[in-house]
């Protein structure tokens, strides 16, 4: 025990100088929800390209699983590494509060990217969301409705029970289904969670089909979920009776669109979130952008970005709908 501490101290002194030198270019790290989730490759691509252009150092890390506390050691590690900016897609709206506070206390700029700490916004500096998330739920319900003539039993296949963004959309979907008379004949029978794991999502989808034989539609507002749901529908050849839609990646969904398993789905460009995050972060660090509500700034390819209430920024106004007519135009 004693030896270790002595060794540790000696080495810390020895390494002190290199640590200080390594801080020259701005270091940005993005912490995804979990590994093996291709959606984050796309966001990460935006970070990477922007950093290549603006000369910063970028790294992507993610825990093995998307449970609430799995990102904590990663955040601790980034604090220790002395990065300048932490971008994170939080796995929990409140379990990260304490560790994000200590990151902020170290002077690190903390941005939530692609999901926010709903109700705990004071524990990050700003959030970058692809679209105004209050419209995501209603947009998805409308797309589902248009596929099933606005009547019948539908279900939702989501990510984890905790996922803050998915839960916001699901709440909005419930709200829209209950209060908008246009959707009065659509009946939400179940909301299930595939934990953003392909196998679990597949199992949950099969259970839905078994439990609700009259099911006509499934909304999966997560890229892992919609791909799993479409796979089940495709292998059973029931695309005419059960309609799948949700939020998906064009690259993963292309084959399902082409063979008619899925007629349309929606998303935004995750790539642009990374792109915007880097431009914003560097702007804030060099003083050219003020992180205050109401401020506007220009970002190449995205135009004018405005900082909304709670320091939130969107990369685009509405969801993009992908179908057979435009799927080939997107490569992420």
């Amino acid at each position: 025990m004693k030896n270790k501490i002595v060794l540790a101290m000696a080495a810390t002194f020895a390494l002190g100088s290199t640590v200080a030198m390594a801080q020259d270019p701005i270091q940005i790290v993005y912490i995804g929800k979990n590994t093996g989730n291709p959606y984050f490759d796309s966001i990460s691509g935006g970070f990477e390209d922007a950093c290549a252009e603006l000369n910063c150092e970028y790294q992507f890390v993610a825990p093995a699983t998307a449970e609430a506390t799995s990102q904590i050691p990663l955040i601790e590690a980034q604090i220790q590494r002395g990065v300048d900016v932490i971008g994170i897609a939080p796995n929990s709206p409140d379990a990260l509060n304490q560790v994000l506070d200590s990151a902020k206390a170290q002077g690190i700029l903390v941005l939530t990217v692609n999901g926010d700490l709903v109700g705990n916004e004071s524990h990050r500096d700003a959030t970058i969301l692809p679209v105004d998330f209050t419209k995501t739920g209603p947009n998805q319900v409308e797309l589902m409705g248009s596929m099933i003539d606005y009547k019948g039993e539908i279900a939702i296949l989501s990510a984890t029970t905790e996922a803050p963004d998915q839960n916001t959309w699901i709440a909005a979907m419930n709200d829209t289904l209950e209060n908008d008379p246009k959707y009065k004949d659509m009946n939400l029978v179940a909301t299930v969670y595939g934990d953003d794991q392909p196998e679990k999502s597949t199992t949950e989808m099969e259970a839905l089909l078994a439990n609700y034989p009259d099911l006509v539609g499934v909304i999966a507002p997560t890229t892992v979920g919609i791909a799993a749901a479409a796979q089940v529908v495709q292998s059973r050849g029931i695309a005419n009776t059960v309609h799948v839609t949700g939020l998906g990646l064009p690259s993963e969904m292309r084959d399902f669109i082409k063979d008619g398993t899925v007629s349309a789905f929606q998303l935004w460009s995750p790539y642009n979130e990374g792109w915007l995050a880097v431009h914003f972060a560097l702007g804030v660090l060099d003083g050219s952008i003020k992180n205050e509500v109401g401020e506007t700034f220009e970002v190449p390819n995205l135009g004018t970005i405005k900082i909304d209430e709670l320091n939130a920024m969107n990369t685009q106004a509405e969801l993009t709908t992908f179908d057979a007519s435009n799927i080939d135009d997107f490569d992420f």
Partner: protein
Amino acid sequence: MNALGTSETGATSAAKPTRPGWQTALIRPETMTFVLLIIGVIGASMLSPFFLDINYILRSFTLSAEIALVALVLTMVIIAGEIDLSAASNMALSACLFAFAQQAGIPMPIAIGIGLLAGLAMGGFNALMVVGLQLPSIIVTIGTLIAYRGLAQVIAGDKSIRVPDWFIGINNQMILGIPLPVVLFVLTSIVLGLVLSATIYGRQIYQVGTNEMAARHAGIRSKKIKVGLFLLLGLASAVAGLMTASRLGSVRYDIALGGELQMVLMAMLGGTYIFGGRGSILGTFLAAWLLVIVSTGMTVANLLPAVQLTVLGILLIVAIIATNFIYSRAQR
């Protein structure tokens, strides 16, 4: 330090010419853990220049301190020839009951009492099944592993429950510059280490685990010992659950999810024999540090989770092989 371990080799060495002290020390499984720990520290320092910082290592240890604390008591249960896989679920359920109670307006001291009593009761239930009804502990506790976690989700739902501000941040309480959870872990190690190696009760635990029949014929009340251990483990789990609640600032049903594997891993890495009768608190103590050092080192080096899991798996297999080899040699 050796006083903390077993002295199982005492009988064999008496028959032969006495082995030199260094040799007896070398063939102890804790030596292997200690050597791995040193290698771990050196390896992690080579992986990342940010690793060797005693404050960072201590801070990282607090993330596992709760699990490690429970692992100490679990070590005693395993030495007594039983296993308890429900301890991590117990942590979650005790914490949920505590959080639920204080949210319902029950004063904090009573709410804490409810949490601790719940932990004891869960340990008692395991004891009733295993000792009272003579059921195999591995089956019983796999059952309660699932049931306790399920019950926690029934109570807390999918939401997180906040705890009062003054209760938050046990990991930021410093005693002589060391985070409180680490201090608690070290003190518990010393106390349990002394109990196990230097008291009659401790001796009896080894005898029960080595050969329960023989122990009972020798007048050792094995049932009483086992019930006591299950109760102690239940209590320790509840304390750990409350510590986790304090560290995170909120409680969810999935606190310490999968923690039972980490606990067993710590005991096994520390040279505890899965079939009972052998092992030591010192071993588990060292193994807890080893696990934290290895995973922290890999995390701060931004290694992929897949690599980390592979390394941890290999580490366990190495430890099992070494332990078996050492024990079979010690028996000759």
